């Protein structure tokens, strides 16, 4: 019994069916408690006032925006190496969720930036690299949508995802080089002395967990939908042939 057997579409459908409600339930629970705790039961920051509370949406969504791309990269690699169809479909399913996370991060950042920095948008390295990530997501999804044959589409998008990852990483550092930052540095690192204060950190951790679970649940749901639509397609082709 190896791990790969779970990638069999039929087996995938059968184990995800019971997992899915739990994933959604847990995601909802974490998000609701994390956000309510964060919004109503934490003090205002002494300089940022209540605007600091957008951190509970901004940080988790930004994290998931990047992690979604990494997950797509891993799924693409698995598809290219082992040719598990579920893997390719999971990569396809993750892209719209990832792009939504990117948008949420950009939007909440802009809303926070207006009172704090005095501008919705600045060509700061972090902001710019997120915008570029957004463009990469757009290209990836557009390529999926443009090709009829599912296997060709999976192959081409996988290669694009790999090449895109290299260039996205390159852009990240190029952008750093290009302009000085307005965005604060990392304040959630494990190895740093000065992190975000515990009052903010605990609900933040909960909402990050909520976003991870939400991402997991949404990707599962979308993958299941993709598998079903693939089945419908196969049935229709068989129908039209006979």
């Amino acid at each position, binding site marked *: 019994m190896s791990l790969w057997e779970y990638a069999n579409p039929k087996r995938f459908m059968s184990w995800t069916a019971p997992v899915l409600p739990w994933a959604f339930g847990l995601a909802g629970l974490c998000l609701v408690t994390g956000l309510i705790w964060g919004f109503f039961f934490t003090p205002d920051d002494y300089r940022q006032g209540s605007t600091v509370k957008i951190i509970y949406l901004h940080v988790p969504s930004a994290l998931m925006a990047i992690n979604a791309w990494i997950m797509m990269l891993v799924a693409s690699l698995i598809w290219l190496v082992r040719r598990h169809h579920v893997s390719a479909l999971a990569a396809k399913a993750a892209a719209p969720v990832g792009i939504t996370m990117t948008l949420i991060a950009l939007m909440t950042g802009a809303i926070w930036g207006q009172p704090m920095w005095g501008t919705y948008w600045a060509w700061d390295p972090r902001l710019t690299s997120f915008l570029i990530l957004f463009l990469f997501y757009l290209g990836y999804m557009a390529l999926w949508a443009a090709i009829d044959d599912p296997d060709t589409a999976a192959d081409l998008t996988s290669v694009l995802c790999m*090449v895109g990852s290299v260039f*996205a990483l390159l852009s990240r550092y190029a952008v750093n080089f290009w302009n000085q930052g307005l965005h604060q540095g990392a304040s959630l690192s494990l190895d740093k002395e000065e992190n975000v204060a515990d009052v903010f950190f605990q609900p933040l951790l909960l909402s990050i967990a909520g976003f991870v679970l939400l991402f997991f649940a949404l990707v599962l749901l979308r993958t299941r939908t993709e598998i079903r639509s693939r089945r419908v397609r196969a049935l229709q082709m068989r129908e039209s042939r006979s």
Partner: protein
Amino acid sequence: MIALLLRDLRLATRAGGGFGLGLVFFLIVVVLVPFGVGPETAVLSKIASGILWVAALLAALLSLDRIFALDHEDGALTLLATAPIPLEMVGVAKAIAHWLTTGLPLSIAAPILGVLLQLQSSAYVFVAMTLLLGTPALSMIGTFGAALTVGIRRGGLLLSLLVLPLYVPTLIFGAEAVRRGAQGLDATTPLLMLGGITAGSFALLPFATAAVLRINLR
């Protein structure tokens, strides 16, 4: 491979090959910009190097879909795939041919058109140098994009959507080198990075290009 290169060059330069189109497009963009931002000398000379880079990038983009599309239509691409030279080298030859017909003339024309944009005199050398160094990377990345979209009808718009984000690092380092060079600062780092991107693209992207072509020809 050299035969393929020469064939592509001949096809591009003869009637209907679209050799001059990129250059003319470049000229038109450069002429249009002052209408958009106003004719003040100070403003123009400040943005001139950036305009030249962006215009060169767009001009290179314009002719990308020709790289494989025509060969795909008449079946020449299938022949190339079964030819004794590896498909990777076909990609390289195509990229070089594309560069010789767009990147090289653009690099030569850019300093001349810089006059129209009040380009600072100290920046002429840098504009030509960075374009010479950077446009091969644009051609190679574009060849990959063209290979990716070769099987798609009306893939031109999709091609630009896929390729333009990949152009970001090249553009950043190219424009940054010109900016630093024009101000008399040390431009070694961006120049090295630009050369690194070009060398890296030519080292790695041919494999991706060939892989994508094989998938598309399946």
